């Protein structure tokens, strides 16, 4: 069984919390310095009205503010105010990047809002946002350990288990932890980690050994989380208190690999990457970033079902041709291959279209011999799974169409190159519209992306439920 390290969860992203919204911005590290894409940051906190880009300089009109930057220069001018950043402005691959201290140095001059930022973290609070905080205590009990998390405000919890860890989703309120990670020398719990790098605050509990049960519950009106980590009795299973169902009832809370065959793999393919940015929105959003964020959410949603292991073709912002993506997918003999794209889908937005592969040249009379040939060229391997790919596209579309406010077209066929040489049921999911004519804010909205991720996980399960075991 594959083990997914937690650092993959804490992907390189930065969360901007505002009173009515939050945005997840991709973070880039250059020479151990964290940088943020300037246009994405500004569009997260407002709207870029216009920009003038020259070879070595950038001028941005943002509301009443005019921001001027020069490449490889630490000085930034906001209206009449000249500011000095800790690190120079960069522009790799044509994307203007500013160091993280731009948020505290320049953003208050631009937004005229208070900015709260704890140095070293990957989140910032702008405007009238009052984040919840918490403390953690671990106590030994007769049969295990009790984790007590005291919050400064009420929270809700939703639990899930995956890959040997327990996930406690803490509801919609922004949370600022005093510490990111709590480590223990304990026979039951080794680590409690806070994570919100996908915009969803959660605690991740790592048990010290496998075979433990986990019983979380809220007390004091939602301000205290009590989580019992118990060793199961040797004969009879523990009888939890009324209303406290163990997480194992819904999903395996046991961190060790389950007995029997490994979980089926689902391959998630975030299109483009590196210098290949794909489509671009009016507000500077890039297809490669939009789909990378979506893939991270879909991955979590699939892992939370406890029914799949997830393989990513692209990890990080790297150039990747089609062949290594196909190789990575085919190596794992996946149950399904999902390729994620964002592009021009016209004026209707948000909109989702699911495609299966349709060849540009339909098969001739001799192209589908019976019985099927032993060896199939890689360029024609999609034919082996065409029916299942279409069924998968249909199942996903049905779930995506249930998202309020989202237009989900009937699934179609397209000569989508990403699907051609994948030896598995394969579909491409395109969201839009990501085009220079329209703002793409909704496509990077965490709620929208979370809804997509949940619908895709549900669609995948529905498809498997309705098809024979492969």
């Amino acid at each position, binding site marked *: 069984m594959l083990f997914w390290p937690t650092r993959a969860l804490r992907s390189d992203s930065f969360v901007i919390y505002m009173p009515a919204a939050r945005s997840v911005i991709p973070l880039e590290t250059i020479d151990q310095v964290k940088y943020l894409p300037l246009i994405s940051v500004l569009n997260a906190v407002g709207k870029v009205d216009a920009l003038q880009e020259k070879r070595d300089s950038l001028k941005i009109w943002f509301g009443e503010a005019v921001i001027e930057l020069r490449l490889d220069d630490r000085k930034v001018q906001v209206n009449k105010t000249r500011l000095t950043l800790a690190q120079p402005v960069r522009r790799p691959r044509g994307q203007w990047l500013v160091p993280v201290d731009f948020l505290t140095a320049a953003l208050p001059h631009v937004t005229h809002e208070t900015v709260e930022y704890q140095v070293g973290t990957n989140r910032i609070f702008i405007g009238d946002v009052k984040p919840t905080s918490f403390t953690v205590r671990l106590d030994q009990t007769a049969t295990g350990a009790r984790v007590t998390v005291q919050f400064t405000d009420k929270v809700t919890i939703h639990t899930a288990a995956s890959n040997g860890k327990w996930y406690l989703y803490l509801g919609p309120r922004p949370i600022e932890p005093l510490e990111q990670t709590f480590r223990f020398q304990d026979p039951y719990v080794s680590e409690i980690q806070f994570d919100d790098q996908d915009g969803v605050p959660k605690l991740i509990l790592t048990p010290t050994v496998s075979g433990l049960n986990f019983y979380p519950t809220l007390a004091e009106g939602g301000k205290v989380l009590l989580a019992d980590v118990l060793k199961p009795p040797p004969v009879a299973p523990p009888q939890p208190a009324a209303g406290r169902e163990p997480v194992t009832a819904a999903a395996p809370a046991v961190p060790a690999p389950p007995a029997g065959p490994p979980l089926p793999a689902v391959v998630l393919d975030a299109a483009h990457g590196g210098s290949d940015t*794909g489509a671009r929105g009016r507000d500077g959003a890039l297809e490669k970033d939009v789909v990378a964020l979506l893939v991270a959410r879909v991955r979590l949603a699939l892992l939370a079902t406890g029914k799949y292991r997830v393989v990513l073709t692209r990890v990080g912002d790297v150039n990747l041709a089609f062949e290594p993506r196909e190789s990575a997918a085919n190596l794992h003999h996946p149950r399904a291959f999902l390729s994620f*794209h964002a592009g*021009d889908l016209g004026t209707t937005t948000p909109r989702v279209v699911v495609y299966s592969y349709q060849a*540009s*040249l339909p098969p001739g009379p001799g192209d589908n011999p019976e019985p099927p040939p032993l060896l199939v060229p890689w360029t024609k391997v999609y034919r082996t799974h065409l029916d299942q790919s279409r069924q998968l596209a249909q199942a996903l579309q049905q779930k995506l169409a249930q998202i309020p406010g989202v237009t989900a*077209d009937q699934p179609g066929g*397209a000569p*989508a*190159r990403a699907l051609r040489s994948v030896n598995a049921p394969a579909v491409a999911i*395109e969201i839009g519209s990501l085009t220079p004519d329209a703002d793409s804010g909704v496509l990077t909205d965490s709620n929208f992306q979370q809804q997509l991720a949940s619908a895709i996980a549900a669609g995948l399960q529905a498809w498997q439920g309705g098809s024979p075991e492969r």
Partner: protein
Amino acid sequence: MTRRAKVLMLVLLVVLAGSVLYLHVLARRVSFQPSLQHGEEVARTRLSEAALQPATSPQQMATLYFPSYEQGLLREEKRQIAWAETDTDRIRQVLLALMEGSHQGYSRALPPSTAIRAVFLAPDGTAYLDFSTQTLADLRPGILSECLVVYSVVNSLAANLPAVKKVKILVEGQEVDTLDGHADLSDVFVPDPARILPAS
């Protein structure tokens, strides 16, 4: 002046005259030798002019297909075109009409900056269209958008030129993997009537 000096002077004058004459011929050769790039541009311009010039034949109704993003299909538009003599020029006429854009307000298929490097029609009915990289730079990437662009070209050509059975798209004279990262161009395209919005 001695006789020897006169002979020397005469020889020098002959050499000088010969040099001038040679330089003149050389200069003419240089100025009339077109560069390869210049030659291609001239050829392309000549082809475009040939396609755009009013033909002696009367105007006939042509069928063009333009993208409709809302339906994810192609919309039909009729237009009068005075067809050129040869099929390759007619292919170019269709492409130029698509570049010109819809007269009925439909979405654009090919950007106005599209540069067609060459057009060939093989005996088996395969039309080879060689676009420049600039064409790709001005396209809007996406599965739907690239698919609509390709089938706009393929279906429009097939609708107006019975000789065109298949279309192979090249870029800068080379086979390419995709149009702009999405649509698979590794094989030829045949017209797909299912991509056309049925007439209401």
